């Protein structure tokens, strides 16, 4: 039933301005943001977090996560940070963030211990899995995927946001919630100048918040709804939460921040109208790795190692192939496995059909050893994001019993659906903000962490880079003197916040967002050409001029959605500029050009960067190994941290 219009239930504060001062401002209180705040506060900084939702349950893993990847320094790992980062880089043909993933492999375990110290659950302390092949009896850690090498840890991620929030608050961090950052403020209000604060708006009262900060860390994750929008159900347009619209991308682009790899968008894998609920249909990846699959007649689907040899036992699905040292989860990126790091996998659907298997397929936990069944349905599905209630509780309430039932599969592998080639998505390791060894962007005073960084993904990566960026931002803040806001810039940004309220008749954010996605599917779909991309840019510019200026809303909630949609429009333009700047196809970037037959010519084996120079788009480049020697550079930039850890 449709609710009726009613008076707005919260006090309206459109005419009020709250001013806040701090050393380090963290934008976004998800996995990375909470850790950035803690890292900065531990270094003695006064820290403020702006969070659009409620921190305790916000972000991609606000409702949980079930595994912590790449904890190479945990006491059971047989792989070093160097080996693991090297594998991650090579599994993506070099198109990866060497700095951020080295931080992930080197410090991820430290962050997991921080979370445990704040009462996050990371061990099987009740001995529920004593004796299981994935358990280390001494540490009580449970591992996932490669049971020999033990660098991916199964966790009770439901407890993590609570723990992170508790820990940050204990360190004196101030959280300003239900408040969306809308613009970055710069020294003298100049384009490209040092960042000295941000503007924000409260989504319930409409109050304007102005923050003055010596350093700012962007932790608002990656953009969504650039190609995908479901009218009537925009909340499930994407795999990521609806309020994570990549606001930092748009805000920082407008002041001159540099991006890379945003030309990479893969054919969509997961979201509302084409796929079944994530982790909720029969599959054998991620949380469900390595579940037995069967066909319609109950015939077991063969598992193969990287050489195509059939695996005789369930246990072998969790072990490297003969002669292989270790395997990455799912062979790096599911679509383009790299032999050296490729893990076990089931026979492809095409091969199954050729061998007479009958559709549909099912995931059959009843055929798994008891401990594997319990750890998948209990620990993993009980703790993964978006699973505890929609899958575990609701299926159990409807009678699902993993020891008796098989769950239908609706697509190849974990995708649980079939998308069209022009339906693109930032999934896996998409592009984002370019970073240096302190996780600072090209703009002074502006840092980034988590999935806002280019080629970034995963909870452990977000926490590790968050803490790292937080402490480097604090160090930077301690070196700079007081900052003074440029009041005309504050006033101009404040006026933009409320413009949609003055627009009596106009366009709804739904309509504009849907139009952007249609436009992007047509001009920036599976195949790119300069002409198409330029036509797309013209069309987006017209939309910005003629339609975004007519966005209309009535209350603070509408204003939040409207400013998100403006950001989506800006990010779509960054994507088109990024695509235009890369003139040849690239397999690793899922980037195909019709006007250039070349795929991966050596001269394009580099990061292409784009930024708004203030007088047009500046295209730049960096070598794929711009980060240099990983351990040497890491140690040079983190002497204090290394010394402090070695003492504790």
């Amino acid at each position: 039933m449709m609710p009726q219009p009613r008076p707005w239930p919260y006090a309206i504060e459109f005419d009020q301005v709250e001013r806040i001062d701090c050393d380090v401002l963290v934008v976004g209180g998800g996995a990375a943001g909470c850790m950035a705040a803690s890292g900065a506060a531990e270094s003695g900084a006064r820290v403020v977090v702006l969070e659009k939702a409620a921190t305790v349950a916000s972000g991609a893993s606000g409702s949980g996560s079930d595994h912590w990847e790449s904890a190479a320094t945990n006491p059971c790992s047989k792989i070093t940070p160097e080996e693991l980062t090297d594998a991650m880089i090579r599994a993506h043909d070099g198109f990866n963030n060497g700095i951020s993933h080295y931080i992930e492999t080197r410090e991820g375990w430290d962050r997991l211990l921080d979370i445990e110290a704040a009462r996050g659950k990371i061990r099987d302390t009740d001995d529920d899995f004593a004796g299981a092949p994935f358990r280390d009896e001494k540490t009580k850690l449970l591992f996932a995927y490669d049971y020999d090498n033990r660098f991916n840890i199964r966790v009770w991620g439901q407890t993590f946001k609570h723990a992170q929030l508790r820990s940050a608050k204990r360190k004196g961090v101030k959280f300003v919630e239900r408040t969306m950052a809308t613009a970055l403020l710069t020294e003298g209000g100049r384009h490209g100048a040092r960042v000295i604060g941000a503007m924000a708006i409260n989504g319930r009262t409409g109050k304007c918040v102005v923050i003055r900060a010596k350093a700012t860390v962007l932790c608002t994750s990656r953009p969504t709804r650039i190609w995908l929008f479901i009218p009537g159900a925009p909340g499930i347009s994407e795999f990521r939460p609806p309020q994570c619209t990549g606001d930092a991308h748009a805000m920082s682009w407008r002041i001159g921040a540099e991006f890379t790899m945003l030309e990479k968008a893969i054919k969509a894998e997961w979201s509302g109208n084409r796929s079944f609920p994530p982790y909720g249909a029969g599959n054998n990846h991620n949380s469900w790795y390595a579940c037995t699959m069967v066909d319609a007649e109950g015939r077991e689907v063969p598992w193969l190692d990287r050489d195509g040899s059939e695996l005789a036992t369930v246990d072998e699905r969790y072990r490297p192939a003969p002669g292989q040292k270790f395997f990455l989860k799912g062979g790096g990126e599911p679509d383009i496995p790299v032999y050296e790091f490729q893990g076990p996998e089931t026979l492809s659907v095409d091969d199954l059909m050729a061998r007479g298997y009958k559709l549909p397929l099912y995931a059959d936990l009843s055929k798994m050893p008891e401990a594997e069944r319990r750890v998948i349905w209990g620990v993993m599905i009980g703790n993964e994001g978006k699973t505890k209630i929609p899958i575990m509780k609701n299926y159990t309430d409807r009678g699902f019993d993993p020891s008796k039932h098989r769950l239908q599969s609706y697509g190849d592998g974990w995708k649980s659906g079939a998308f069209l080639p022009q339906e693109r998505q930032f999934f896996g390791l998409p592009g984002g903000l370019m970073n240096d060894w302190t996780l600072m962007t090209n703009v002074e005073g502006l840092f980034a962490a988590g999935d806002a960084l280019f080629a970034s993904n995963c909870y452990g990566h977000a926490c590790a880079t968050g803490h790292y960026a937080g402490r480097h931002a604090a160090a930077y803040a301690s070196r700079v003197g007081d900052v003074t806001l440029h009041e005309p810039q504050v006033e101009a940004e404040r006026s933009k916040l409320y413009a949609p309220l003055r627009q009596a008749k106009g366009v709804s954010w739904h309509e504009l967002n849907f139009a952007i996605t249609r436009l992007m599917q047509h001009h920036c779909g599976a195949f790119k050409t300069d002409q198409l991309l330029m036509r797309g840019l013209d069309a987006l510019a017209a939309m910005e001029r003629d339609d975004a200026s007519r966005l209309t809303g009535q209350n603070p909630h509408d204003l939040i959605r409207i400013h998100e949609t403006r950001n989506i429009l800006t990010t779509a333009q960054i994507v088109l500029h990024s695509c235009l700047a890369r003139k040849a196809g690239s397999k690793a970037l899922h980037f195909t050009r019709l006007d250039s037959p070349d795929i991966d010519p050596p001269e394009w084996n580099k990061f292409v960067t784009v930024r708004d120079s203030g007088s047009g788009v500046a295209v730049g480049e960096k070598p794929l190994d711009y980060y240099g020697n990983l351990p040497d550079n890491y140690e040079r930039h983190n002497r204090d941290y290394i010394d402090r850890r070695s003492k504790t």
Partner: protein
Amino acid sequence: MSEPVMAVPDPMVFTPIIIDDDLCIGCNLCVLVCQADLFLPHPEKGGAPTVFYGGECWYEGSCVDHCPVPGAITLNTQLFNRVHWEESTPS
């Protein structure tokens, strides 16, 4: 601003969340945790919140997870997203 500020709902195609008004104690924990901020609290203390911007639901279930009263709030999977299961065959 002279006009009263109004909340106007979006067209709702699905019913993502069902609140049982008899069980709900009006604690507003669901209102507090929802990422999409899709609920509006009841104007009177203790009243059940309204699912107002239902189209914005991400279906992650934090509202249900934080609710102190079993059954007071239910996450209602859309019909097109209902996954089928059946008895498995003997090994």
